[in-house]
């Protein structure tokens, strides 16, 4: 008698629901490999160790749960800086609203264009970084994305990009279910900044594979807000060459279910990476999960993970962060901090920091704290006449700032700061 297992039932249903587009043979091979891989591991379920604190049901349900449209009472971000704008409506690229896709030192193609060519450099990247990131921990939603995603861009920076590429994800349909897959290659010595902004869709599954070659720099700043009901799963896979720099920061405000995974691997010596996140959640309907896996497989590399969450009225925050230092990866400097600021007794913060070290000459430190607003600081501010709600917001912002400060660009971090203050101010009024 056949026994059904929800992992595989859900997996089959998902693969049946989305159609893989036709492309070149190498692309189809990559997609088929991802489907096979997904069938092997099955869909994520609450029982999985890696999903212990986050119930993935909303990310795998069919049809996708709907998400009401949020009053569009705020402007998209990063509008004040020079940038190349790409607009996606519910996960579908909209050329009309986007800038002309030409940028000095950068080659930009749509995913479908690139994947239809018989010979393309993306062959060595599309689904490859994602597949590498599947061990030792399964990331089935990323495999699903590789198998079927049709939207996204294949970007190659051959020089120093004169301005950031800004991806703006607009959400206009209550039942949109979107998948986006970007492949980004930063050539040796080149640099590129990618900005992502907006909720994406009612349900949004995004994968970004980034290869940062020797001496190259990749900067990534992302904001996810301010919709209430949206569900989002993102995967950022990074491969770092020697002396390269990788920095990623994400700000999240509200959202029913957000899981941001970041999987990095140091393959060349003397590289540096920072992954940061600041999130603010309000209400029992907020669940935010940062899951990070950093593998050190080279000499003298430095990684930082800095995550801060402010939670109130029954909101939940999760952090699962791992540093794996492989045998021989001497002089590794790994740092990890995750902190939850709980504004009341109903909110929750779960943290699972992990270190696994097979080299004997490394510095690795990690910390995790959960606390409330500092009452002494609050009282001090009140005695100077600052109203309580405002004083509290200043302390919250100060707490989140330590993560925002990880952004290596003053204009961008100021933008994030300003947006957070506006959100808080509006919340008070």
């Amino acid at each position: 008698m056949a026994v059904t297992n929800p992992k595989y039932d859900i997996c089959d249903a998902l693969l049946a629901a989305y159609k893989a587009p036709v492309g070149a043979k190498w692309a189809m091979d990559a997609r088929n490999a991802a489907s096979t891989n997904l069938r092997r591991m099955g869909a994520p379920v609450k029982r999985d160790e890696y999903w212990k604190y986050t119930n993935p049901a909303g990310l795998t349900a069919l049809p996708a749960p709907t998400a009401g449209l949020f009053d569009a009472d705020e402007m998209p971000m990063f509008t004040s800086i020079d940038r190349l704008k790409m607009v996606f409506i519910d996960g579908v690229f909209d050329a009309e609203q986007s800038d002309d896709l030409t940028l000095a030192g950068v080659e930009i193609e749509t995913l479908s264009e690139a994947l239809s060519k018989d010979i393309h450099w993306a062959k060595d990247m599309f689904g490859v970084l994602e597949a590498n990131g599947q061990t030792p921990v399964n990331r089935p939603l990323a495999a699903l994305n590789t198998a079927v995603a049709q939207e996204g861009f294949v970007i190659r920076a051959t020089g120093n990009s004169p301005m950031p590429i800004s991806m703006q994800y607009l959400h206009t349909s209550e039942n949109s279910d979107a998948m986006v897959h970007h492949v980004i290659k930063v050539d040796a010595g080149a640099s590129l900044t990618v900005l992502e902004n907006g909720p994406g869709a009612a349900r949004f599954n995004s994968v970004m594979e980034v290869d940062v070659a020797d001496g190259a720099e990749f900067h990534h700043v992302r904001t996810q807000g301010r919709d209430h009901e949206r569900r989002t799963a993102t995967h950022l896979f990074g491969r770092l060459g020697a002396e390269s720099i990788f920095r990623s920061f994400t700000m999240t405000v509200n959202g029913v279910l957000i899981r941001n995974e970041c999987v990095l691997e140091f393959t060349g010596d003397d590289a540096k990476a920072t992954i940061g996140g600041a999130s603010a959640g309000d209400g029992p309907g907020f669940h935010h999960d940062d899951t990070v896996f950093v593998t050190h497989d080279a000499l003298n590399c430095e990684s930082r993970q800095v995550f801060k969450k402010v939670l109130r009225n029954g909101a939940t925050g999760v952090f699962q962060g791992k540093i794996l230092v492989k045998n021989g990866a001497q002089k590794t400097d790994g740092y990890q901090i995750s902190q939850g600021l709980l504004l009341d007794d109903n909110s929750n913060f779960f943290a699972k920091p992990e270190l696994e070290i097979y080299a004997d000459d490394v510095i690795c430190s990690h910390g995790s704290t959960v606390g409330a607003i500092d009452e002494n600081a609050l009282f001090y501010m009140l005695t100077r006449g600052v109203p309580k709600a405002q004083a509290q917001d200043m302390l919250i912002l100060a707490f989140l700032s330590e993560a925002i400060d990880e952004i290596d660009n003053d204009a961008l971090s100021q933008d994030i700061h300003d947006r957070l203050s506006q959100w808080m101010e509006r919340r008070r009024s």
Partner: protein
Amino acid sequence: MLEIKNLQVGLEEEDKQILKGVDMNIGEGEVHAIMGPNGSGKSTMSYVLAGKNGYEVTDGSATLNGVDLLDMDPEERAAAGLFLAFQYPVEIPGVGNMTFLRTAVNAQRKARGEDELSAGEFLKVVRAKAKALKIDADMLKRPVNVGFSGGEKKRNEILQMAMLEPKMCVLDETDSGLDVDAMKLVAEGVNALRDGKRSFLVITHYQRLLDHIKPDVVHIMADGKIIKSGGPELALEVENNGYADLLAEVA
């Protein structure tokens, strides 16, 4: 200005009475000093006046220009013109000193129905006042009190006081942890604010501070009560003889 009548205060968490009926009347422009042995309730009084949690007023009243202070939230007391210079100023990582000052000044102006100061106007005023207190631009930029020395923290308190222009200033052991020069600087800052209208309540252990900030009235507090009040000579008496004689006198 500040009228305290039969103020009785206990701790919320435990059954302990700290103030056992304090009476004090500080007139406009007057400087009063409170001295007293450790544990007599001096700091508690400053906290209760400022509105700190954890204390329960069981009897009595405190009014500022006739308005009930004890009924107000701490920020309302500040807007009404009360200022407490902390014995231990609090460090606030991540909040810039200047931002904090400007937020406080403008919040109070707003609460009083006055126009907020623009960044330019504010900067001009704060620079002049900071200079007099030997507070440099770097201290203004740093997070509130973070990494400040003891003297810098106290000078920062006086700067806040100068910027907020309160009617009634309570200084809780502002001299503690200061060397002679720093104390002089702080005292000068306080004296600069004496304009015949603004009133001060100076809590201190030592007569030394009162050489620099000349009080009109000196109160001796012991075991939650004012046991003796008098002129500046009372502080000298304490300095020379300690509290033992005074305590014996009352007992």
